[in-house]
């Protein structure tokens, strides 16, 4: 079943040649890329951009609580008077930290396991892939929920929890790549010359197997951001006063009906736009790289 799942969401083998050029012609892709760049820039420069950096980090300002958007606080203030834009900017740091953290750690684990399985084959492959399947058998989010619940809520634990449910995707993908690369003449040649296994894997196989993984990983950042927002929404993610979009939606919920929409509203929009941008990248990259008639 999991094979089916990955087959569908990750169909097609990207052809790196010409990808960049074709990508640059794609307006949707360019738009998405600029959005992502924008988010990264404002996240990095958050303390410089906002005059309310302390509030972004969590310091309240009670006299100004629940102000509607105005010329000082462009998106208003939250229930303890913090500038919503400052919270969004620092929330972007949290979101991107989690997204890049989860994906990079997952890729590392995936590479080790996937390459080992694909290169050595036989029972090693069988065992590792069956284990991978077991992790993939959980509906998305649920495994992360159990892990986060037992570790307790914090940003670091969110990264761990999502990683636990994320690495198997890359393990599968790398394995498939390695399986085909293993039979290439230059690999055979290296093996015949007596190059040790770890060097064959490290120097000849992994570098050539990584391109599609990076493409996939980029596209996955959006999904990670959504899962992380979900975890903090149910109280398993970042703790107050940490800035986190999921948490802002949860806290802002209380005020939406009273007409104070700007807290939950803007945080939800922030998540949606960033996730949309990452997903569009994934979509476009898939479009420009996939071959016509499947694999």
């Amino acid at each position, binding site marked *: 079943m999991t094979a089916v799942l990955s087959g569908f969401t990750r169909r097609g083998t990207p052809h790196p040649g010409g990808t960049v050029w074709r990508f640059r012609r794609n307006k949707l892709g360019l738009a998405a890329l600029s959005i992502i760049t924008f988010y990264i820039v404002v996240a990095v420069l958050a303390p410089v951009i906002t005059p309310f950096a302390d509030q972004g980090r969590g310091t309240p300002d009670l006299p100004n609580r629940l102000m509607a958007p105005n010329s000082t606080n462009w998106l208003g203030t939250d229930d303890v008077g913090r500038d919503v834009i400052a919270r969004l900017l620092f929330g972007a740091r949290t979101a991107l930290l989690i997204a890049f953290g989860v994906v990079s750690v997952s890729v590392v684990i995936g590479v080790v396991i996937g390459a080992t399985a694909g290169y050595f084959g036989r029972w090693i492959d069988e065992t590792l892939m069956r284990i991978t399947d077991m992790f993939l058998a959980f509906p998305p989010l649920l495994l992360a*929920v159990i892990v986060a*619940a*037992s570790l307790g809520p914090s940003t670091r634990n969110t990264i761990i929890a999502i990683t636990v449910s994320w690495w198997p995707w890359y393990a599968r993908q790398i394995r498939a790549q390695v399986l085909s690369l293993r039979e290439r003449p230059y690999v055979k040649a290296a093996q015949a010359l007596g190059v040790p296994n770890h060097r064959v894997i490290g120097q000849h196989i992994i570098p050539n197997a990584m391109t599609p993984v990076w493409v996939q990983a980029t596209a996955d950042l959006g999904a990670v951001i959504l899962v992380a927002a979900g975890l903090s929404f*149910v*109280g398993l993610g970042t703790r107050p006063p940490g800035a986190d979009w999921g948490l802002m939606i949860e806290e802002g919920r209380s005020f939406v009906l009273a007409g104070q929409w700007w807290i939950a509203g803007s945080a939800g929009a922030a998540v*949606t736009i960033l996730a949309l941008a990452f997903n569009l990248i994934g979509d476009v990259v898939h479009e420009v790289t996939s071959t016509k008639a499947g694999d």
Partner: protein
Amino acid sequence: MPYLVRRFLTSLLVILGVITITFVVARLVPSDPAALYAGPRARPAQVEQVRQDLKLDAPIVEQYVSYLGELSRGDLGISFATRQPILDDVVDRFPATLELALLATLLSMVIGIPLGVRAAARQNKASDTSLRLLAVTGVSIPVFWAALLLQLFFASRLGWFPLSGRLPSDVSFNEPTGFFLIDSILSASPSNVWAVLRHLAMPVTVMALFPLGLTTRLIRSSMIDVLAEPYSEAARLAGVPERTVLYRLALKNALAPALTILGLTFAFSVSSAFLVEAVFGWPGIGSYLTSAIQRLDFPVITAGALVITVVYVVVNLLLDLLHAKIDPRVQLS
């Protein structure tokens, strides 16, 4: 080995693996599993009791075997909040979630397949681009935020739908199946059915968003592949009308893989249920889990997740077997 048997055995193995993973997370991750399991109500003596009951001092393998033993007797443990066997609570609440998940799956198929076909037929035209944008948006909105938006506009502002719950408090009928849509139809009262539908509308819509986006995208890409096949081209050349090519020839070939999307769709609905049931006050297994989190009711969290996952594995197995029946080539792979 025949495909059926092989597929069945793999599922078995996966279930065993899922159990193992939850076991490992529950016993090895927390600093003191006994305290976590004993729950907040426990005094030190009770924590000690739990340590013995769970055989936490025993070798890990022995603990594991007895855990499997309990599961095989249908013993999922006791909830600390309700003091009820978790299995009872789960059985009580599962139909409510399943009703949402199935209807959301259905809705996403009914809308997503024609949208995907349409997008494929007009590949790279403006309407294709906007449909794709719509589909990507569907998979990019946090479901709980979408739930909030719907509540704000369609319940709070416009008053078209009730804000939360499964039924108004003054409506009740027999519940032989636990699926209120069916039960209300059995009660032969149109006003009951209407009340049930009104309550289902918003949660089902929200839960269908993600799978809808997914279905549209997948149908679109598999249709594009099929339309490029020589036989599609041949049919066109033979003068078969474009509509017929689309819906008869191509869709039929694209649908077999689409069947497997069902499993995915179902999985995403269940995950969404976890996030939106609490928002809609829906008495299903999702809200059961979210409130267990705030109660530190750890046995419920693991057991609930385990049951959902096992159901998911079983659903996938059934779908795969169905798939093999429709498309014999699968069996060879």
